[in-house]
């Protein structure tokens, strides 16, 4: 097998467009749109990938072509009128400058959206079949809807061309309007648009024909579609192959971008965006099956997180272009590093799904491990050297401390990192013990490797004290001492153990266990799963309305699936108010948050997950003698100015969970944002 560089750094020509290599990013919806336009933040995010050597970056997932497919409420892009064209021009210039191609995805969402937003129009679809994920029943499209929406697609296509984009794809995946027509699970029409596959394909064909009439045969137009809907009443792989071949043979499309599954319910959605519990490239066979049948280039994205897998996909002929979308969120300079022979420096996507989970709750896409992604205007992907070299001492080799050490070393400072444990990782090392969460260690593994490579001196097994810190005579001290489990302060809380005790192996789960989760994050659910796989009889209780309620839509279904499979009893809407002993067992008192009725559970063990409290002892010891009394100048921090440098003495900063228990991204952003200007 040739090297990844040999395989992937091979151009691909589609019509007049030559892509410089075989790696791309698919259209997605990072929530960076503003007023329905791709403005500076959106453009900078993609420009960074172009700088980083990507061949093709596609933006604007689900960009709308019609008023009844709203875009602005999700901070997405509306191509439904000409006002977007100047932004396209600016955007394409920006990306073309770095040798990359730029395309967009256009769609009409059909029933896969909400009616109660921007325009308060009912959703439309092939048939009036209720969509589970968005809980709406659409209007069945009638003749003037067809005319209007087809015209909308054509006009949007023209806007892409006028905006200088290299092309676009129509989304006919994840249950959008075109594939709502294709799928027998939605389309129950009896007219020429329903029934046979030929009829069900008709609407899409008419859309593409109108587009071709508008932009001509030279403009690059593709389609994104499923290779198998993976549901009983949906499109089969054979159907999808037929659709792709039909559209390709009729000259309607220049590329086909294939994924597996669909997204009409929570579990299907999670499967179509595979997280770290999946193997890499789980659906590669689907584009492969279509590539065998069509003469146009085939693209594919779905958890291709490493370049070796990407190279295999191309080299073995499964696909022509590999989309490494989340891999680029983790490291937009992926391809440049490949070309420069710096594979070791690639920050590999761990598949945490943090980026995508945020956007489904209305947030912006952020990377769990790369604080610069999506913040290109303020956060650099390449750290510049500091004007003066300083001696920086970092305490704690969790994500915050490692990122602080890495960034300070990139700045050219002399960095010493002290860690109490025998290895790095901090709380990530604990979280990663839980079954499919193992890949989280990639976050700190990369940070550790980079820190070492950059010359950070790491001393393990060293408990930092005020004396040891002072002995090093640092100019800057950064405390990233993390947190310790909060045990709660209800009566009998000392009778419980924590999820840390279980995951680290300090306490062996046995017999019947009540897992009480007060945070709704990954930890409670994954600890419950961990214990159940070890044979414990587990009940998980939470005051939330659902287990793992704070976990996003690509991860929570996996937790629920595993807990159901393991027979874990799930109790919601209850708060743990008291524990008392009974013999060598425990009684947990759970109070219903709505009725205030109390129930009791007699169990062998009670495990609580209540988040962390900061390890701030060292901070308090050092605070008074530090030049800044531990204060981080928030104005400087937020405006990207260096923290004030003390005339004499040592500056002291505190980051991550050592300040307040939050999450991995917060810890890393704390560190990067502070240290990039130190």
């Amino acid at each position, binding site marked *: 097998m040739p090297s990844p560089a040999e395989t992937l750094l*091979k*151009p691909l020509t589609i019509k007049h467009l030559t892509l410089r290599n075989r790696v791309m990013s698919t259209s997605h919806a990072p929530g960076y749109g503003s007023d329905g336009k791709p403005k500076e933040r959106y453009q900078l995010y993609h420009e960074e990938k172009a700088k980083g050597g990507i061949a093709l970056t596609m933006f604007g997932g689900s960009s709308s072509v019609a008023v009844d497919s709203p875009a602005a409420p999700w901070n997405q892009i509306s191509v439904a009128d000409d006002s977007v064209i100047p932004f396209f021009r600016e955007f394409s210039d920006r990306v073309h400058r*770095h*040798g990359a191609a730029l395309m967009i995805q256009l769609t009409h969402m059909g029933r896969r959206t909400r009616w109660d937003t921007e325009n308060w129009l009912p959703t439309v679809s092939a048939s009036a079949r209720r969509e589970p994920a968005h809980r709406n029943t659409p209007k069945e499209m009638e003749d003037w809807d067809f005319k209007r929406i087809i015209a909308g697609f054509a006009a949007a296509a023209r806007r892409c061309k006028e905006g200088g984009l290299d092309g676009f794809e129509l989304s006919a995946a994840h249950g959008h309007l075109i594939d709502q027509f294709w799928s027998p699970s939605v389309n129950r029409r009896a007219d020429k648009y329903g029934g046979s596959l030929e009829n069900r394909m008709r609407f899409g064909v008419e859309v593409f024909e109108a587009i071709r009439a508008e932009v001509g045969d030279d403009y690059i137009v593709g389609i994104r579609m499923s290779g198998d809907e993976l549901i009983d009443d949906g499109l089969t792989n054979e159907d999808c192959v037929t659709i792709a071949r039909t559209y390709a043979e009729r000259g309607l499309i220049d590329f086909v971008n294939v994924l597996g599954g669909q997204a009409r319910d929570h579990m299907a959605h999670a499967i179509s965006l595979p997280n770290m519990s999946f193997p890499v490239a789980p659906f590669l066979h689907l584009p492969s099956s279509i590539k065998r049948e069509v003469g146009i280039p085939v693209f594919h994205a779905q958890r291709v997180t490493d370049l070796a897998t990407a190279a295999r996909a191309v080299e073995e002929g499964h696909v022509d272009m590999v989309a490494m979308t989340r891999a680029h969120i983790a490291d937009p300079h992926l391809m440049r590093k490949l*070309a420069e*022979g710096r594979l070791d420096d690639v920050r590999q996507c761990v598949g945490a799904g943090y980026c995508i989970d945020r956007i489904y709750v209305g947030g912006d896409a952020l990377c769990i491990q790369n604080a610069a992604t999506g913040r290109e205007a303020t956060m650099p992907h390449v750290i510049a050297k500091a004007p003066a070299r300083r001696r920086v001492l970092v305490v704690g080799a969790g994500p915050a401390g490692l990122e602080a050490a890495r960034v300070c070393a990139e700045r050219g400072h002399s960095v010493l990192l002290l860690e109490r444990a025998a290895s790095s990782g901090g709380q990530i090392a604990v979280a990663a013990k839980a079954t499919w969460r193992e890949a989280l260690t990639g976050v700190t593994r990369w940070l550790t490797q980079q820190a070492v490579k950059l010359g950070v001196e790491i001393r393990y097994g060293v408990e930092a004290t005020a004396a040891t810190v002072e002995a090093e005579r640092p100019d800057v001290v950064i405390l990233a001492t993390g947190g310790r489990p909060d045990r709660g302060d209800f009566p009998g809380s000392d009778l419980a153990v924590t999820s840390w005790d279980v995951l680290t192996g300090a306490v062996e789960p046995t017999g019947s266990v009540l897992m009480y989760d007060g945070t709704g994050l990954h930890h409670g659910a994954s600890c419950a799963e961990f214990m159940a796989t070890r044979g414990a009889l587990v009940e998980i209780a939470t005051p939330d309305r659902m287990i793992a309620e704070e976990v996003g839509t690509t991860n929570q279904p996996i937790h629920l699936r595993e807990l159901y499979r393991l027979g874990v009893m799930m109790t919601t809407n209850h708060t743990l108010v008291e524990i008392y002993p009974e013999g060598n067992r425990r009684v947990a008192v759970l109070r219903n948050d709505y009725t205030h009725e109390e129930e009791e559970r007699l169990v062998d063990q009670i495990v609580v997950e209540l988040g962390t409290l900061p390890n701030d002892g060292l901070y308090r010891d050092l605070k008074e003698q530090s030049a800044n009394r531990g204060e981080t100048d928030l104005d400087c921090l937020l405006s990207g100015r260096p923290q004030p440098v003390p005339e004499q003495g040592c500056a002291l900063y505190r980051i991550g969970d050592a300040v307040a228990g939050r999450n991995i991204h917060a810890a890393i952003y704390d560190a990067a944002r502070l240290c990039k200007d130190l």
Partner: protein
Amino acid sequence: MVAAALSTVTLTVLLVGLALALVQARRWRAGRAAAVDLWAGLAALPGRYLVDVHAVVGRTPFNARFHALSAGGFLAALALLVVLALPPLRHPALWGLLALALAAMLAGGLMVGYRRRVLRPAGLSGGRFNRLPLALTGFAAAFLLVAADQSAGGVLPVPVGLALVALGGWGLAELVFGVWNGPLKHAVHGALHLVAHPRPARFHDGAGRDSGLRPLDLETADSGPLGAGRVVDFAWNRLLGFDACVQCGRCETACPAFAAGLPLNPKKLIQDLVLSLDEGGDDRAYTGSRHPGRPVGAATSGPSRPLVGPQAMIHPDTLWACTTCRACVQECPMMIEHVDAVVDLRRFQTLELGATPAKAAGVLEELRATDNPGGRSLDRRLDWAVDLRLPVLAAGGTCDVLLWLGDGAYDLRNQRSLRALVLLLRRAGVDFAVLGAEELDCGDVARRLGDEATFQDLARRNVALLNGRRFARIVTADPHAFHTLRNEYPAFGGRWTVLHHTAFLLELVRSGALTVTAPLGQAVAYHDPCYLGRYNGETDAPRALLDAIGARRREMERSGLRSRCCGGGGGAPLTDVAGERRIPDMRMDDARASGAPILAVACPTCTLMLEGVVEPRPAVAEIAELVLAATEPTR
């Protein structure tokens, strides 16, 4: 009486010496014919000796001095002795002159003795050579006394005088008979070699440098074997050249293969050829350093026996260990052309026997089949530059600078250097173009591996291609392509102005087309590529360019024309002969010793060889990359 004895002894010895020399010379006639202008050579001899030979010898001033004294004194003494053989001319003043000449020679002889007995450089051969100081001083001292005595009227007792004549006569005989496989062989053969040198253009009365390989006649069927399989397959003046070797060991000291413990000592290689001139010749009497790791005395040879083979005089590993770096040629005071000999031997192995070793055979096959050594499709030569949208010079098109990309364009690392170069050309507003898929490998590797047929095929097609395009000059970042296009394509009808990119970039900086905005300010050691430095004499432009971008330049041990090879030339990475160390590792030691954090390179092969050295080591940067960083436009 003493004077007569002196004359008799002298003339006898000289006559015997002449006879020996003639017998020796007969051996060369077994070689192939060569077109030699003997009269022009004779006329040029004094100049070539005094200028070219002395330039080489003078690199070690002590040696130059003892050589001037001993050889000058000896020649003058011989001339005077011949004159003094005529009794009417035995004037005291002439005896006095003779005494002066001999005194000079004595001083030189003592210096030779000091060098051989006290300094003892490792490269020197022993054996008969170790008697040289004795012979020199014996002859000079004894005859000096005689001459002084004669000028004073002859006061010494006759027996003492005769004894001195006998002693001096022994010394003279030792020296003169030494033209027969002895130390003084080089004096006669060396002079003849200067007269009949196969590359007269290398001397100061020619172009001053002549490093391009000569085309092999592949068309004439009856011209004998292709290349040299037996020693008699070499041209006669090549054999003369080998015979001129004085085993001084300068080549051995300079040879990177020898230093790395690869089984090649250029001095021994030349001796292997010399010994093969005699039927049944073997190297048991050879007293210099061996080919590292190889025994002596195991093989016998002869004029018509195969030279190369596992049991032959030259082991294949010895032949294929050479990197064609020309360090030996650069150092040889006898003007021997070692690399020509190596390539001739390789030509026979490759073209007649198909015995190219290791990966080299596969690479040659790829070259024949695909026109590039990696077997890549030619239309992928620009894969790395899709986003640069390089202008391709089509037939009928025109440009100022034709950028010859070379096979570095297929290599990930060198694509970065080329990208830097292209960005610089753009920045400077140069009207340039590339040949795209039409460019073929220049044939350098094929030629050095002895595959002259493939080389000539590539050369003819490249020449036809280039002659069909209009451009002012060719620029390339590959010194091997630079050398081949500049020095070896003219024989195939290709004559263009060819520039190495360092010279061209210097021109751009000096003309103001590139402005240094961010001087480098760091210490940089520059590694001279063999095919740029020794092969083409270009050592100044890269240095001037580094100076211009604000590098604090440091010279490594062995630099400029005496630079040490990276180990990558002549197909050596393909033949892959094992040694004790890797040549690039040794070269990197020189870089480390310089203390510079950056090692600047100017050749795709050097880049790969040196960047392949394990860290810690200085960062390896192609000069174009440094220039790119130093000339970033300011906002």
